């Protein structure tokens, strides 16, 4: 890197320098792209492809149900079709396409040149693609999942679903969820740290607030389902009985774990969509958003309240009435912050001078459809009504009103709104309007009728029904509506395709918006901003209409663009003051290779090739270690000139670099996983019928003692290694890193000894199985803690660490603080709880 290079003299020279650093190579080199625009668009395009797949499956469902006693699909094919429709729409379309939109837009709206961890997003994309291909492959080979998109046990267990259909779901969806958690961490850190100067939290676009809360919800909400999927796969593959009642399991555990994810998931989808609404409404109302602070508070409240609703999917399973009322009360509460947002939107529209452009038309569809879905949601939150319509088409109608209203209409509005930014051309108001009316009318015809079909008692998930029950006419209308809606979607896709070639050129700020992305050339260059603007309000483009020129001319920050620098700014979280300079990664094969090896692990596990699967996991780990090795510097760098007379430290010498935040949020996800596992342990203990187990853990007292010793050694070693680094004591640092490494190995060995020596056969009872998983979790973390200590040791020897550059030992300490605490908790759960709770 040549930081000493003189700043570019002209905008063209600046463009050439920056583009050389940020652009994606051609040919096979495209696989190495880490650029957020490329990765974001890949997510969106792949998501829209899966939307088409899910749409075709929906048409098959409606063709089958159009008439009574239809012979179009057999029951086996129908089961696969409706399961895959739900799975594809929820996991392969809804979340990824919103992630893609966020990854594409956030740096442009926040004033950054890329995301906090561009390579992580690239890895996430490949995980999503490969996981989606596993599910799609299952569909094409006729072995797709067929137990419903929420895969209830015992139907999805090995006894009732002996083939690999359920495994395809568990493996494919878990692979995709790895991608979602990566995106969650990425988005959270980006919003908190990678903004431009002056963008304090109260000047952030509302879209970023929505995405911040959504990202944190993903980080907390997805691990329970990942855990559930792992437990069910372990039961199916190795007969460990987590959900088998006869051996101490309980099918309700699956329902809890699924809906602990599943209900927040609805809001994980809705909040970004509401973020689109909150972005578009002030633009088309020609008035700043009213109630910015109220909306921010509503988003945060929704993020929490949405985690208190999961049991309302389980009102009929036999839970005490008082517990049902807790969840019913929370279900009603969540309508309040949503209502506040609606009032803010309506107030903004009333205060402004709204113009009805194409995106606004789709927002109108959102307002109508989502309100109706919300109202039937409040009906379903009432326990007695819920009992009446449980598992009927009323629920299917409700969830489509919520998801199509809360996601699809705002998403289409957003795609039309930002389309000119991506392609530089305007969409067709006529074709887009026609598509809207077909989608809107078709949707309401299809699903308004379905409420009535449900109230008349038609259950969901039946492939055929008798005539003369009063369902025939309504079903036919629903099917006609479904096909009309499908034609509308085809027109929308046609409009996207045509406008990108034939649409008229978009002016610089076609909608009159004030956010930063509209200050960029269209399509935006690979690096977004020639120099990063300093912002002083929520609508910087309205303050300074000449922002585009100033950015290209290198005024303001980081306009020096040293070759190879790939610089962007990190700011203080709250104030938005410039904190340090982040050096972004160059295109690299590592994310792709890591995802391929992760894919080998998942695919071989699916096929029962366990040795090959383990080899895939080891190769993936080796790739991640190589990835970690590629970061950092071997000498202490000077302060960097950032423009406006500022000299900022580079991230190599900063303790709260994005990497620290990334690990912190990853550990939050990890902690949620452990909390869900401990919940499962206690749930089985208190609720499952075949408890207590015949035999408890019978461990040699040395085992827990050695485990505790190892955990404390890891905690102490991580702490002392950092302290030695800070006072430039390399010998002490080496010693404590060795202590950490050996402690990790010792603790891992002691935890692994539990299932091997101290438990009855793991197939005999859920107690043994869940205890083994707890021990395995702790062993895995200790082993990884040892590997990280070894890596830091090698990096110290290679010169990557100094008293100034101490991020490596800082991360090691953070890892061991979590792993040590979690390990001690698990140690108590394994060795002390049986004594306390056993009769």
């Amino acid at each position, binding site marked *: 890197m040549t930081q000493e290079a003189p700043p570019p003299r002209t905008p063209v020279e600046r463009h050439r320098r920056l583009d050389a650093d940020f652009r994606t190579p051609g040919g096979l080199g495209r696989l190495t792209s880490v650029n957020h625009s490329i990765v974001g668009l890949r997510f969106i395009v792949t998501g829209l492809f899966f939307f088409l797949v899910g749409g075709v499956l929906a048409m098959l469902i409606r063709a089958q149900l159009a008439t009574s006693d239809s012979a179009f699909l057999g029951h086996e094919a129908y089961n696969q079709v409706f399961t895959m429709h739900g799975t594809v729409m929820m996991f392969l379309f809804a979340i990824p396409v919103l992630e893609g939109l966020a990854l594409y837009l956030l740096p442009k709206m926040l004033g950054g040149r890329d995301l906090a961890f561009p390579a992580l997003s690239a890895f996430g994309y490949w995980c999503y693609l490969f996981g989606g291909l596993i599910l799609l492959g299952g569909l094409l080979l006729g072995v797709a999942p067929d137990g419903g998109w929420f895969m209830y046990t015992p139907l999805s267990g090995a006894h009732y679903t002996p083939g690999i259909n359920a495994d395809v779901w568990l493996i494919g969806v878990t692979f995709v969820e790895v991608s979602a958690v990566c995106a969650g961490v990425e988005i959270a850190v980006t919003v908190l740290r990678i903004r431009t100067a002056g963008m304090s939290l109260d000047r952030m676009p509302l879209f970023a607030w929505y995405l911040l809360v959504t990202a944190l919800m993903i980080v907390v909400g997805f691990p329970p389902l990942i855990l559930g999927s792992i437990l069910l796969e372990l039961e199916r593959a190795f007969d460990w009985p987590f959900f088998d009642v006869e051996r101490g399991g309980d099918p309700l555990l699956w329902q809890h774990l699924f809906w602990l994810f599943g209900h927040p998931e609805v809001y994980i989808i809705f909040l970004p969509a509401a973020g689109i609404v909150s972005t578009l409404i002030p633009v088309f109302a020609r008035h700043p958003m009213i109630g910015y602070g109220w909306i921010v508070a509503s988003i945060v409240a929704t993020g*929490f309240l949405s985690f208190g609703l999961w049991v309302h999917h389980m009102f009929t399973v036999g839970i005490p009435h*008082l517990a049902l009322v807790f969840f019913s009360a929370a279900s009603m509460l969540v309508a309040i912050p949503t209502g506040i947002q609606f009032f803010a939107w309506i107030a903004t529209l009333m205060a402004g001078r709204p113009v009805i452009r194409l995106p606004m038309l789709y927002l109108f569809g959102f307002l109508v459809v989502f309100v109706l879905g919300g109202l039937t949601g409040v009906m379903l939150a009432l326990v007695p009504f819920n009992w009446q319509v449980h598992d009927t088409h009323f629920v299917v109608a409700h969830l489509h009103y919520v998801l199509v209203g809360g996601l699809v209409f705002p998403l289409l509005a957003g795609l039309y709104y930002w389309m000119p930014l991506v392609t530089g051309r305007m969409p067709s108001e006529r074709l887009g309007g026609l598509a809207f009316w077909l989608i809107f009318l078709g949707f309401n015809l299809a699903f308004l009728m379905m409420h009535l079909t449900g109230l008349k008692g038609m259950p969901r998930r039946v492939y055929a029904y008798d005539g003369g029950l009063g369902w025939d006419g309504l079903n036919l209308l629903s099917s006609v509506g479904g096909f009309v809606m499908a034609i509308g979607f085809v027109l929308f896709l046609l409009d996207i395709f045509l406008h990108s070639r034939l649409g008229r050129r978009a002016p610089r700020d076609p909608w009159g918006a004030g956010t930063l992305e509209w200050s960029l050339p269209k399509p935006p260059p690979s690096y977004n901003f020639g120099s990063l603007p300093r912002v002083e309000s929520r609508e910087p483009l309205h303050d300074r209409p000449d922002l585009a020129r100033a950015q290209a001319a290198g005024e303001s920050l980081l306009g020096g663009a040293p070759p190879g620098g790939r610089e962007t700014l990190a700011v203080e979280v*709250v104030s938005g003051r410039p904190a340090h300079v982040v050096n972004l990664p160059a295109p690299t094969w590592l994310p792709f290779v890591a995802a391929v090896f992760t894919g080998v692990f998942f695919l071989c596990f699916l096929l029962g090739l366990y040795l090959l699967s383990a080899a895939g996991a080891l190769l993936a780990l080796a790739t991640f270690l190589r990835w970690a090795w590629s970061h950092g510097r071997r000498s202490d760098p000077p302060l960097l000139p950032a423009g406006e007379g500022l000299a900022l430290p580079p991230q190599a010498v900063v303790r*709260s670099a994005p990497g*620290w935040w990334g690990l912190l949020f990853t550990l939050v996800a990890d902690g949620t996983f452990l909390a869900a596992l401990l919940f499962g342990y206690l*749930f089985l203990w208190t609720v499952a019928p075949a408890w207590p187990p015949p035999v408890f853990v019978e461990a040699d007292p040395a085992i827990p003692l050695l485990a505790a010793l190892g955990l404390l050694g890891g905690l102490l070693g991580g702490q002392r290694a950092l302290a030695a680094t800070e006072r430039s004591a390399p010998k002490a640092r080496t010693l404590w890193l060795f202590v950490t490494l050996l402690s990790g190995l010792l603790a891992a060995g002691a935890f692994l000894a539990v299932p091997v020596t101290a438990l009855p056969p793991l197939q005999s009872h859920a107690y043994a199985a869940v205890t083994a998983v707890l021990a395995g979790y702790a062993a895995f973390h200790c082993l990884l803690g040892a590997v990280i200590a070894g890596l830091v040791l090698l990096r110290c020897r290679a010169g990557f660490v100094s008293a100034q550059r101490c991020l490596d030992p800082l991360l090691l300490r953070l890892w061991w603080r979590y792993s040590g605490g979690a390990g001690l908790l698990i140690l108590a759960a394994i060795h002390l709880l049986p004594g306390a709770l056993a009769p």
Partner: protein
Amino acid sequence: MSPSRFGRPRALVSLIAGYLVWSSCFVALYGLLSVGCTLQLQLRAGPFGTNGLTLLLAAVWLLHLAVLAWLIRSALRRRTGGEAPAFLRRITLLLHLSALAATLWIGLPLLLLPPCS
């Protein structure tokens, strides 16, 4: 330089503190209800015709309400000063107040329904 000093994310922790208390109350009520019913605590008689489990749950509920009241008091005191900017102080107070209302709302059924039926 510690991460908290660096970016003052403590203001963000304060922002969500009220709803963290709400979450704790929700999980504690649901968890203790399940464990209490398993241990049949509802069969132990309490004063004024109550039972042991309802009393336990009500105590937990009141404890959370007290913590929320304390948080609101602190937020009111910091309304015109403190490290965080005015915007964050204002929505922190708003969130604490709404968390108090939400906690009141989810706990009210305790007073109306028997615990384990």
